């Protein structure tokens, strides 16, 4: 190898460079050209397909909304131990009061409530009802207390001056934090100037807490707050909604306080995260494992019935004279020219209780009129309609593979004494397996992610996991769970593909030729 390399140095092109580097350069240019040719498509797919999917999948672990909306509460909750079985301390409630009062102004508290409701039903209504009350908490007693004690506390400009003073800021941490948040809110939400607006109640409450903690600022008028009647903030919350006294609610908030969460993925497999670790969900909330299993089982059944129905047709197509085969081929392709929705709706008319199929069966006398077959709004409906819709995807690869099977093989088998069946089963069928493989992969992968047909004919017992994903995307707005379910579905398909490769071998799959 080294000899050859040093030897190659001796070979030079006309411009004196080594042959090897010239060749490399020429090849590189070719590669770049090839890359440039596919660049538009690659960019298009990257920007419009891969990136959004990746962004969507990220939502399955993203949990920014909790620490973003109630940062003070999450910090204060670190001290609290869920195992005590008691609601957190007044400190936590006070921090939560500031967070919620701000979130209510930004209107993000309802979204946070919806987020936490995914983990513990009932929290959404707590956030919504308390959100309406938080502006009317009795903490305005503190506001009145301060403004009565000294008029300077009622002067917005004076507040702005204090809060621009580094000494005040250093000595009153809670007040500074609350005032900054309030000032940002005033500008962002109300387009007002903080120096002209009265600070909100929660700013005064923060000042009260600072003073009670023994922090004072020299620049501010001294107020003795220790004699004031304290407003118990936890009572205010429990008064607005008694759910806040439940330590489980706080445990949920604490458990899901991180920037990233495994909650959506656990939820996708009917588990939940609790302070004591991962547990199975209550029985009435377990649905996803059932749905995943149902999706796979029905998809396998649909693929199986496509093989059973498609194989004879493909065989016929491949062995008829070209003229009649073409006519049949048009019949196979005809459904492609009709909208999917129309085909599915047509099945509704055929399959329903008073539908064509049941009418015919009753007329023949196979079923009684008062005991008509349930062919729709259940798994049967899904299997029938989807088999019909996916059948062409089985027939076409089968047909193109069968077309390439040399008829002389079967003739040779027969000439050596094989019966029709042996010739077919031992010679023809093994040759057509690559077509079955290709058709099965196509049909199965299409079926496992199918949405519209199960939605229309599946009722409640014949719907797939994709219908739940669609529900979470467009109705419940639980995009995190939808993303987690989607990710699992994607991994499942890839795993099945890998398994298929190991069992059948992907080299054995042919789409034709």
């Amino acid at each position, binding site marked *: 190898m080294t000899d050859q390399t040093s030897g190659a140095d001796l070979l030079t092109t006309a411009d004196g460079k080594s042959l090897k580097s010239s060749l490399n350069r020429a090849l590189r240019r070719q590669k770049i050209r090839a890359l440039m040719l596919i660049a538009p498509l690659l960019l298009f797919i990257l920007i419009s397909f891969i990136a959004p999917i990746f962004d969507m999948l990220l939502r399955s672990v993203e949990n920014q909304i909790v620490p973003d909306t109630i940062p003070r509460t999450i910090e204060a909750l670190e001290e609290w131990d869920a195992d005590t079985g008691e609601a957190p301390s007044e400190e936590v409630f006070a921090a939560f009061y500031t967070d919620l009062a701000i979130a209510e102004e930004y*209107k993000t508290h309802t979204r946070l409530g*919806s987020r936490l409701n*995914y983990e513990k*039903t009932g929290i959404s209504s707590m956030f*919504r009802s308390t959100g309406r009350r938080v502006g009317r908490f009795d903490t305005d007693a503190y506001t009145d207390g301060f403004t009565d004690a000294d008029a300077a506390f009622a002067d917005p400009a004076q507040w702005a001056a204090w809060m621009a003073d580094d000494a005040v800021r250093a000595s009153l941490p809670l007040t500074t934090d609350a005032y900054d948040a309030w000032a940002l809110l005033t500008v962002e939400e109300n387009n007002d100037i903080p120096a002209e607006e009265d600070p909100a109640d929660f700013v005064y409450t923060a000042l009260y807490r600072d003073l009670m903690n023994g922090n004072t600022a020299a620049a501010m008028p001294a107020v003795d707050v220790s004699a004031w009647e304290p407003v118990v903030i936890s009572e205010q919350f429990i008064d607005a909604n008694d759910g806040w006294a439940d330590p489980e609610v706080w445990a949920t908030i604490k458990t899901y306080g991180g920037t990233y969460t495994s909650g959506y993925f656990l939820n996708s497999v009917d588990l939940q995260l609790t302070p004591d670790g991962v547990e199975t969900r209550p029985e*009435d909330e377990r649905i996803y494992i*059932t749905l995943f299993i149902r999706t796979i089982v029905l998809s396998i059944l649909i693929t199986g019935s496509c093989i059973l129905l498609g194989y004879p047709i493909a065989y016929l197509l491949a062995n008829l004279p070209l003229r009649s085969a073409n006519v049949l081929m048009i019949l196979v392709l005809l459904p492609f020219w009709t909208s999917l929705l129309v085909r599915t709706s047509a099945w509704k008319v055929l399959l329903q*209780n008073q539908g064509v199929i049941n009418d015919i069966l009753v007329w023949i006398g196979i079923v009684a009129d008062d005991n008509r077959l349930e062919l729709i709004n259940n798994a049967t409906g899904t299997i029938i309609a989807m088999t019909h819709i996916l059948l062409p995807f089985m027939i076409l690869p089968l047909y193109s593979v069968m077309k390439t099977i040399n008829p002389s093989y079967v003739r040779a088998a027969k000439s050596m004494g094989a019966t029709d069946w042996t010739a077919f089963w031992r010679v023809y069928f093994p040759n057509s397996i690559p077509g079955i493989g290709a058709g099965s992969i196509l049909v199965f992968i299409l079926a496992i992610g199918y949405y519209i047909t199960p939605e229309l004919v599946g009722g409640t017992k014949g719907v797939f996991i994709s219908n739940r994903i669609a*529900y979470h*995307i467009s109705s419940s707005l639980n995009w995190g769970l939808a993303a987690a379910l989607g990710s699992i579905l994607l991994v499942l398909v890839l795993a099945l593909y890998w398994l298929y490769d190991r069992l059948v071998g992907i080299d054995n799959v042919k789409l034709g030729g």
Partner: protein
Amino acid sequence: MKLTKTLLATSALTVAAGAAMAEGHMASDMTLVSWGGAYQSSQINAYSDPYLAMNDGVSIVWDESSAEAVAKLRAMAESGNITWDLVDVEAADAIRLCDEGLAMEIDHDEMLAAGDDGSSASDDFGDSIISDCFIPQIVFSTTVGYRTDMVGDTAPESICAIFDTDAYPGKRALNKRPLANMEWALLCDGVAKDEIYDVLATEEGQDQAFAKLDTIKDDVIWWTAAAETPQLLADGEIVMGSTYNGRLFAAIAEQDQPIGMLWDAQMLDFDGWVIPADLPEDRLARVMDFVSFATDTQRLADQAAYISYGPARASSAPLVGTHATLGIEMAPHMPTDPANSQNVFVTQYDFWADYRDDLDAKFQAWLAQ
């Protein structure tokens, strides 16, 4: 400290910029979102066609996405590109959008036309203003229709016929969401009408409602589009089913189907417009101009000539006339007509705004099991 100082400085600019924007011109394009079907046609006939006739050069695009309005508005707000100008939603969705800051708050008296009888807009709309963001249009009701030829000699008179599979065997169609179903279940399980929402707020009450629904679970076809029930009734697939009263009116009066109307315990509900939050000034100006026109007394009364939903303004009621093509009196077909509203169930929006997430999650899990 820097933060506060910067804030104090920049806020002055923001306020100045806001004032400068107020003087703007109106955009000439508008995208309106509605439910499609007969309802949207009634809006086109009563609102947008007359508006376009009065305003040259304006064009209106209709989008039929109201059913997914909340999800789509949220996605638009996240991507920062709001393409809709005015969205027709149900009351409960309006509250949800308002709560999440996705819809603009409205000053009804200032932004909408006063009633023809001189009453202010907020008095004229009255109770139908269920949210600060909501511009009411119509009163509709979720009610039950039944096949007159499949119920035997005794036509159902009570809502509890839904749960009575002995007297009325056959399939029923119900909405694939908790709204209305939960209330009816409790009502027919013996809970007094005025206590239903208190009961439904408790876990035991919810279990009670699900237990009642369990008794007919195998006999129910769940619909997601309101047009499904009239279709299923016409096909004879179901013996009875819930849907919106306008859909049943169309099947009975316009298509002459053998369908009867069960007004008992009809769930009164409102439908109206919301304006997406943070629209650019010129588009907002156009929308306000349109919505003020489209919700005035005459326009709301006009709409009732095309569909049997009651106008949300009190002042529109006396102007309700006859059907545009059939020529029949529309008043007796309105959910608010005295003969129909002997036993009315008024949907409590505060309750549903608070408990929708909780009950939706439970209901969907219950359905899937």
